[in-house]
């Protein structure tokens, strides 16, 4: 495992990103900036119905139109796919049934976008409309009298259920009974979507002759078993895509299109934001590939903003019920949760989401007994999937509000209540997840101090208040999405005679800085300046496999892989220099572009000379590094591998709000964000992730609603606001002041001690704001978002009941309750 050094030269310092200037000068090429010779433009025809059978599709008029070069329908790609190998339930284009408004039915490639748009109008699709399920609770009650969203996998089952998970740890009922205080609550988390500023875009290129290299003289026996005939067997498919998961895209393109994976190349340009919204294959990637194969010309499809909203895969709406019991001292005894997840039309990551809805709640607080019962339900709306903080943001909201309610009942300050329940370091959660480093207490201390909590909680004037919340998140998952025993992350690194380091990385740079991170590792270990590190990336033809940018896995896994590769090379360089100087290899330091003798730093040479010595001694200098997760660390029960991570991050937030009781407008003044990221490899990037996460949590708390019309309000299943004007995301004027406080617990297994920072810091924003609203005006907001109409309605109710006032301090509340 990576050991951290106390004398880091490069790691931990504020640095530029390697592609920062390229981005700020407008020279970065994103997917839509790429144009290939002879390129056609594609468009996808989408269903206007939320649920319907496809009776017929007539493309003849579109095919005949001038300027149209190719049309494909579902029948051209009749193979199901899905990011989770156990739930492949979607086709690239619908074959016999459409399941949401926006489901793709046919795609056209034409000389330009305008012609493609016109051609779509010429495609005649006859539908037989079916009753649609829009409400997950109704979908759960369905009896099969009308077709389910998906046919039941077994006779007599409800086909609308994607996944049901029921897990219990400890004796929940007995400990609930034995609790001194039990709080029950019902919560609703509204769906939200990622809205990266870059819309999805893909380009397909088919080279029948296998690309620029000369074709093999004859096909060897290795190809014989592929079952591919003629043209496809010898061609090469290249797809450029704004994806977070080039490796999974590679696999699914090969499988669905029937092309040998060795003939598929996925190139991932730099991605203009993703947040989980580009972490599985989408219809456009299959369509550009198929259209390119059909027309023989490159094809590009760029989603419109409206299509991005319908592609979705964002936060599941959750209906949640929690019962939480604690003793008189505020120590948790028992937690009982019931959750219904509104999944939308396809499974997506839903199997994992259903587990995550319960599995990731068992820290940072110790709980002796815990049960969750989660059901993901299909509905005729765009599929939900993973959004930053996958599956655990929703229960965290409910749970942290429950904690606030409990602390009031037992008469504890909510920060003290959380301290009292701290699970500790090097321990196991009730569901058997292994916790190693844990800086949660330091996070609580930091936000308490920075926010001036002691002078504010229950002390600010009516209408203003503060709230606290905590959370945990994974640094990647111990088990990959498809079962295999290969490494999860890998790096190839080479040194050349000019003194440069070339790093080949398959990781997905989506703005979080993973390309820079591996460059920092190379600079640290090999002592070269950052500008001498080149990162070659995002191309499945020449980079080792990395599984993708999701589940906050990249820094932990790729960082360890990079350290391993770099240290192999460093060892060779040290050995060669030591031989030259006739000293011990361990005494050769590499730093600041120099190789130095530790005993007398006057004795030195440039890293270039050192690399040349090493190449003379060892031959061409290259090294591989890889990382695989611990496979013996998980719960011994069905589902016990889900949620298991090599390390967990911890976060605490304090929010300060001002509520206008006349309008219901909640003004979030400031969020203090303390996050235990293990070690900040570059504090600039860690702060950026913390601020961006807190911003996104704030947005979900106050503004965002990914909702659909029902039959009484326009066309059923139609998105309520598929534009960046109507689907409100915060502008600079809306966003509160954000203060990030980095906590470093130095994880024993992380690269230099690092853990994740990209998703964990989102979680507490929402409950911290809810709890602050309570502190401000005594109203519990148990449903999201806390929009002015929703808050105002509750204010009016409280006013009518004479209960609109500042809540009592927790101790006083207990005394008052006893008197009452």
């Amino acid at each position: 495992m990576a050991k951290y050094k106390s004398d880091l030269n490069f790691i931990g310092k504020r640095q530029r990103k390697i592609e920062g200037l390229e981005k700020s000068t407008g020279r970065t090429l994103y997917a839509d900036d790429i144009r290939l010779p002879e390129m056609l433009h594609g468009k996808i025809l989408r269903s206007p119905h939320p649920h319907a059978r496809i009776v017929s599709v007539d493309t003849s008029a579109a095919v005949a139109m001038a300027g149209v070069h190719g049309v494909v329908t579902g029948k051209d790609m009749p193979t199901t796919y899905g990011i989770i190998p156990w739930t492949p339930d979607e086709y690239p284009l619908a074959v016999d049934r459409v399941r949401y408004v926006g489901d793709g039915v046919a795609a056209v490639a034409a000389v330009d976008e305008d012609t493609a748009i016109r051609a779509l109008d010429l495609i005649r699709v006859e539908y037989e409309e079916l009753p649609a399920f829009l409400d997950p609770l109704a979908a759960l009650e369905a009896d099969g009298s009308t077709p389910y969203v998906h046919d039941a996998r077994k006779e007599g089952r409800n086909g609308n259920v994607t996944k049901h998970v029921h897990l219990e740890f400890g004796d929940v009922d007995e400990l609930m009974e034995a609790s001194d205080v039990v709080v029950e609550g019902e919560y609703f988390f509204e769906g939200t979507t990622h809205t990266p500023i870059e819309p999805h875009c893909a380009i397909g290129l088919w080279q029948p002759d296998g690309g620029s290299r000369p074709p093999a003289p004859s096909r060897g026996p290795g190809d014989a078993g592929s079952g591919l005939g003629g043209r496809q067997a010898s061609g090469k498919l290249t797809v450029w895509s704004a994806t977070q998961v080039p490796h999974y895209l590679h696999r699914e393109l090969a499988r669905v299109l029937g092309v040998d994976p060795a003939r598929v190349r996925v190139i991932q340009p730099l991605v203009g934001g993703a947040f989980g919204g580009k972490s599985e294959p989408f219809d456009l990637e299959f369509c550009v590939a198929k259209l390119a194969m059909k027309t023989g010309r490159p094809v590009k499809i760029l989603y419109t903003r409206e299509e991005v909203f319908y592609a979705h895969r964002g936060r599941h709406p959750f209906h949640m019920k929690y019962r939480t019991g604690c003793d008189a001292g505020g120590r948790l005894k028992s937690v009982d949760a019931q959750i219904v997840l509104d999944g939308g039309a396809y499974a997506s990551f839903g199997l994992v989401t259903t587990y995550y809805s319960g599995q990731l709640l068992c820290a940072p607080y110790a709980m002796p007994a815990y049960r969750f019962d989660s059901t993901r339900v299909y509905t005729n709306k765009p599929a939900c999937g993973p959004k930053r903080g996958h599956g655990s943001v929703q229960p965290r909201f409910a749970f942290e509000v429950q904690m606030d309610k409990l602390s009031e009942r037992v008469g504890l300050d909510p920060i003290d209540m959380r301290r009292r329940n701290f699970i500790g370091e090097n321990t196991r959660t009730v569901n058997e997840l292994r916790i190693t480093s844990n800086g949660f207490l330091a996070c609580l201390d930091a936000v308490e101090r920075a926010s001036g909590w002691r002078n504010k909680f229950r002390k600010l004037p009516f209408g203003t208040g503060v709230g606290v919340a905590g959370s945990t998140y994974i640094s990647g998952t111990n088990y990959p999405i498809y079962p295999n025993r290969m490494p999860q992350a890998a790096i190839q690194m080479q040194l050349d005679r000019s003194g440069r380091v070339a790093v080949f990385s398959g990781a997905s740079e989506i703005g979080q800085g993973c390309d820079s991170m591996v460059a920092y590792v190379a600079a640290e270990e090999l002592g070269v300046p950052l500008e001498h590190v080149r990162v070659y990336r995002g191309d499945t033809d020449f980079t080792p496999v990395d599984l993708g940018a999701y589940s906050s896995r990249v820094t932990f896994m790729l960082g360890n892989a990079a350290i391993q590769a770099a240290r192999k090379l460093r060892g060779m360089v040290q050995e060669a220099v030591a031989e030259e100087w006739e000293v011990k290899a361990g005494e050769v330091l590499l730093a600041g572009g120099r190789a130095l003798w530790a005993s007398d730093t006057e004795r030195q040479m440039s890293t270039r000379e050192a690399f040349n010595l090493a190449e003379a001694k060892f031959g061409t200098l290259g090294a591989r590094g890889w990382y695989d997760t611990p496979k013996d660390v998980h719960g011994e029960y069905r589902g016990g591998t889900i949620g298991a991570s090599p390390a967990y991050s911890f976060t605490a937030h304090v929010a300060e709000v001002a509520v206008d009781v006349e309008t219901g407008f909640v003004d979030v003044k400031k969020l203090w964000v303390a996050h235990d990221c293990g070690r900040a490899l570059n504090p600039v990037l860690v702060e950026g992730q913390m601020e961006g996460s807190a911003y996104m949590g704030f947005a979900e708390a106050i503004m965002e609603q990914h909702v659909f019309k029902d039959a009484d309000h326009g066309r059923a299943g139609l998105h309520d606001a598929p534009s960046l004007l109507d689907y409100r995301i915060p502008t600079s004027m809306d966003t509160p002041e954000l203060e990030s406080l980095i906590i470093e617990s130095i994880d024993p297994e992380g690269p230099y001690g690092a853990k994740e920072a990209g998703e964990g810091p989102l979680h507490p924003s929402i409950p911290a704001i809810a709890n602050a609203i309570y502190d401000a005006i005594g109203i519990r907001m148990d449903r999201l978002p806390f929009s002015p109409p929703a808050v105002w309605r509750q204010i009016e109710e409280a006013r009518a009941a004479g209960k609109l006032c500042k809540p009592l301090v927790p101790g006083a509340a207990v005394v008052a309750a006893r008197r009452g």
Partner: protein
Amino acid sequence: MWENQASRKVRRRNRALPRGVPVRTALPVVGRAANLKTMPLATEIVSLTVNGDRREVGVPGHYTLLETLRYGLGLTGSKQGCDKGDCGACTVLVDGEATLSCITPVREAEGREIVTVEGLANAHGPHPLQDEFDLHGAAQCGFCTPGILCSAASLLAHTNAPTRDEIREALSGNLCRCTGYTKIYEAVEAAAARMRDDG
């Protein structure tokens, strides 16, 4: 040092403008095709001054300024995030004013001085805003960055010592989904300080 000819002209013109001038005024929207189906796709020649160069380009008559820049002139720095003036990723400077190029018909931009993100830097190096964005981590995914830089450049042409509130207001037409804006404010403030120091 960092200025090219075009931005010097922009600044000279704007020196006369008072503070607090709205910096995000889209040009009047006229002639934008409402119905592509009936729209002829006749190519027209338009003349523009882009990043100091006089350019003539043949584009379909309904093209926006953004389409002309990206598809006609190969200037892909300006981004299309929504194509309806909501996100601000397409923001460019038209006669020094931050303008949404995706809802500006190219005809409206004829004869005007256009500066895109590519025109902010010059042969000597990046614009201070561009450098400070890099130093402060103000560009994560970088997709909104070109538009934000143009809005910020327009602001700094109006005032060389903007307050935090003025920066917030000037950038309010540009959505960033990565940063939470904090690092962007810090970068704009640092760039303003550097430009004041450089005179």
